[in-house]
């Protein structure tokens, strides 16, 4: 078990170090998030009551598309650098590679969330920084990263991977996005989110388990 955790930590550290050096994905996803928040704020010019109703949907649509930018790069850069073969040949449990990659993507999406929440709070005038928003946000992003990492590996070898990833992945991410949007909306209206969080947790367990079992097949050529 400790060996498994050590492999996962190695993969996460590698991805974090690579991102810290290049900052390609981080800059792209955070600037995208800021721009979308600005466009929504000025294009829609919402009244406070309407803004509170639509802000969760706008937030999660933005997070989904910003997340795809990062997920697409996750395995594509391994393929471009020729290091995907290295990962394939590594004498380790393939699921540890998946869990490491998923944790790396999850961390990256947390940084996007850290930019998105204050940006939407300031620009739309909705309190998205209240503590109740965070459980739904964390569970939603975990489910998103879990399914997205699997599809990133699946589409990495394809020539049209940039188009293929959203087409394959978004239909599967819809339950997570919609439930997380609902949970965020209920938090803003002070309604109990227990049911929505339970559904998110079940989706996360489903996606992580299925991806751990299926990841080995995405590495085969």
């Amino acid at each position, binding site marked *: 078990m400790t060996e498994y955790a050590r492999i996962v930590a190695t993969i996460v550290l590698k991805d974090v170090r690579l991102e810290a050096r290049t900052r390609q994905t981080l800059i792209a996803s955070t600037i995208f998030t800021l721009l979308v928040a600005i466009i929504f704020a000025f294009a829609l010019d919402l*009244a406070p*009551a309407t803004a509170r109703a639509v802000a969760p949907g706008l937030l999660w649509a933005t997070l989904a598309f910003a997340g795809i930018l990062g997920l697409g790069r996750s395995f594509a850069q391994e393929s471009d650098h020729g290091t995907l073969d290295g990962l394939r040949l590594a004498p380790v449990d393939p*699921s540890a590679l998946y869990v490491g990659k998923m944790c790396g993507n999850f961390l990256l999406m947390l940084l996007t969330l850290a930019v998105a929440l204050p940006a939407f709070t300031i620009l739309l005038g909705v309190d998205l920084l209240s503590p109740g928003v965070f459980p739904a946000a964390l569970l939603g992003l975990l489910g998103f990263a879990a399914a997205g990492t699997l599809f990133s590996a699946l589409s990495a070898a394809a020539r049209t991977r940039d188009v293929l990833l959203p087409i394959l992945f978004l239909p599967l991410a819809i339950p997570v996005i919609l439930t997380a949007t*609902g*949970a965020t909306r*209920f938090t803003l*209206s*002070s*309604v*109990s*989110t*227990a*049911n*929505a969080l*339970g*559904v998110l947790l*079940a*989706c996360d*367990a*489903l996606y992580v*388990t*299925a991806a*751990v*079992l299926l990841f080995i097949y995405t590495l085969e050529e």
Partner: protein
Amino acid sequence: MSASVVADRSSGDALQQLQRRRTRLPQRRFAVGGLIIVVAVGYLIMSSFSSAVASVMSPSELLRHGATPAGQTIRLQGKVVGADRVDPRSLAHIFSVSDGRASVIVAYASDLPGGFKTGASVEAQGTYDGHRFTASSLTAKCPTKYQAAGSTSQ
């Protein structure tokens, strides 16, 4: 000669053991993973089933129950008290539904049904946020029995 045979046999055993471990690990993983998937899918089905079945409540029961959880709808039954007004911002009809003991403010964003008037029994389906019941559908019940045209004068 015999030493090499023993060495061959032991390396063969080790290989078999390794192969057995390799096949056992995915089998066990698929069994545990399958169980987790079945439990998660079961929970999702149960939660969607319980949220789809709307429980019937009177205004006093609803006030005791408090705000509805996410995704759960409730059927609120009672009589309309007072006149309805239109919220100028959302254009929703706002009116009160009472059961004689307590009343709940209901917001309905569509056209009111034909039999809707003060004192009429109504059934609204929607969610309650602790302050206001937001109805997605509204049915007005006829307060009197249908009678033949001639029988009313008798």
